[in-house]
């Protein structure tokens, strides 16, 4: 079953499935990055990857040139993607400021150093 899915992806002209595959790969890379990086900036990059993976999905679902065989999301998809881009920038700005504040207090942005509070 998996091999037939892969064969379909490789032989058919680009459609929603291809974009979703790229989006899923980006999501998994981002999630792995969040889970394994010890540097706070690395974690933030992982978050950025996850958000953009989701954005790719929104764009693909919203495009009228890519038919997924079901009801179309239309312009909503592109609009949500625009909002998410702005939000991601705002979130990154805040997270970087917080990371800087952490660095000032701990002389490091290694997330393993955040161990005074034991969850």
């Amino acid at each position, binding site marked *: 079953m998996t091999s037939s899915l892969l064969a379909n992806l490789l032989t058919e002209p680009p459609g*929603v499935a291809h974009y979703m595959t790229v989006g899923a790969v980006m999501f998994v890379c981002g999630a792995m990055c969040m889970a394994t990086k010890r540097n706070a900036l690395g974690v933030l990059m992982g978050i950025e990857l996850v958000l953009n993976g989701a954005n790719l*999905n929104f764009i693909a679902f919203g495009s009228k040139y890519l038919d997924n065989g079901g009801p179309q999301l239309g312009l909503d998809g592109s609009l949500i993607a625009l*909002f998410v881009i702005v939000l991601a920038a705002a979130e990154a700005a*805040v997270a970087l400021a917080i990371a800087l504040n952490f660095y000032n207090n701990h002389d490091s942005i290694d997330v393993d150093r955040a161990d005074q509070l034991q969850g």
Partner: protein
Amino acid sequence: MNLHTLIDSLISDTLQKSLPLFGPELVLCATIVVLLLARVLPLLDRIPPVVIAFVGAVAALIAAVPQEGLASFGGIQSQEIFTGMLVYDGLTAYFKLFLMAFAVLFVILSHLTGIADRDDGQDYFSLVFGATIGMCIMVSSNHLLTMFLGVEMASVPSYVLAGIVKGRRRSSEAALKYAVYGAGAAGVMLYGTSLLAGLLGSAHFPTMVGRLVEFDLPTRIADRELTVMVLALAGLMVGVGLAFKLSAVPFHFWCPDVFEGASAEVGGFLSVASKAAALALLVRVAIGMTYEHPTSDKLGSPPRDVAAIQQSHPELPVQFVAQQRSTDDESTSDPAAEEGPLDPVRSFVVTLIGIVSIVTCTFGNLAAYGQRNIKRMLAYSTIAHAGFMMMPVAAAVALVGMGKTAAASEAIAALMLYATIYLFMNLGAFAIIAFMRNSMQSEEIKDYSGLIGRSPLIAVAFTVILFSLVGLPPLAGFWPKLRVLQALFEANSPLLMFVMVAAAANTALSLVYYLRVAKTMCIDREADGTRPVALGFLQTAFVLAMALPVVLYGLDPERIARWTQQAASGLFQ
């Protein structure tokens, strides 16, 4: 329709219909702008920021009162504003009023504890109001975009608030942990949202539920289609984001750390306003995905005959009609009835929320035992209460599935009553912790020993609040718990019966750790070398203003309960 008429209708919809109902948020936005400009304009800079914030919050509270007065929640017609992005109904109106009242109290508390001094005040109050606007969007969201925007707008200022105390190692650590966990959960939630929107071809809740009906889930499940798996996965991912906001197990790690690291005032903000908004959003999503409005023209969908009866007997109140219909249903439907198109969604949501709520409640109560820091203990208590407050949502979805919309709206009303009473209990508790921190520089439970001798009024008020958090009658905390249990009993399914038993057992569990603090304060001897506690008149008055409603609630319990019931009935119009 050409572009001209389109723009005309958009403008009239925005100006005449949407913006008047968006008043409280607009007032808060204006307050934020004034607060930020105050740094630049010398004339404004002379006014203390707390005055501007207080005036803004009170104006927003007045704007949040429904047009026909406080008793008119039932009369609010559910209507979509901003072209379907937000919805304004009784639930929205009630929670907006709740959030604005909380904002006023919170500004007063911040002034009394002195956390927002002249230098930091502008930033602090802008962040608080920004988060409050995000919470208002959460409670009124009707679209996946506004859901995500609301969650982010409420979260991002909260990350900063957690670290607002400069130069404290713990505070910066709490902020970093909160930001990293929060951003991760938001990313996962957004990915789930994208899958959900793509599969259903819409991001508008009422349209999505219509598509879910057309999707014909029972047949697809029988055919073992992969699409169903993707849909379930998307639902789980959206659930991750909501569970993070609710601090539900297994996404609760941030909660105790953030509460311990952040100042007590911010803890109060996160545990009351943020939780209430997240619960309202959970109601929006859970009910929105499982309840089809009677106006939709699907043949044979259950709520339709409510509308039919209402048309023939317009004088009947909605609740009565719904009850009449549910009794009709019980007598006519045969037990082997065909599975409705939304039933798989309902059972998915009920199982998910039910199990998560039991685990959250039990875990919170068990983990609170060993805590030595009072803020950490209250963080676990918040987790436990969040679990408790999720239970009526599961019950409501199950009741909607049985067609008992009146009982479902009772369940939601129980949740709203719980959130309201929780405001007084937890804001009171965190206010006391903040005042005690100012006066004895400690947040350890052992330093509270012998408080009754040093400051009897505060000790008694704190004890009352703790008893109410346990849920002992006749204090206010008991009544919403009773209603939650009642709603779970109504739902009458094996899982929810188990949830009910677990909830009752958890109440008994929680008794021990709350009473331990009460015992430390009232029975234990004062340790040597503790500093005397001196609280100003206003501080004491604030604590009493929080504790008295908890005691006096029993005098007129029907009024607030009636408001919540009217407000909740708007969901099922």
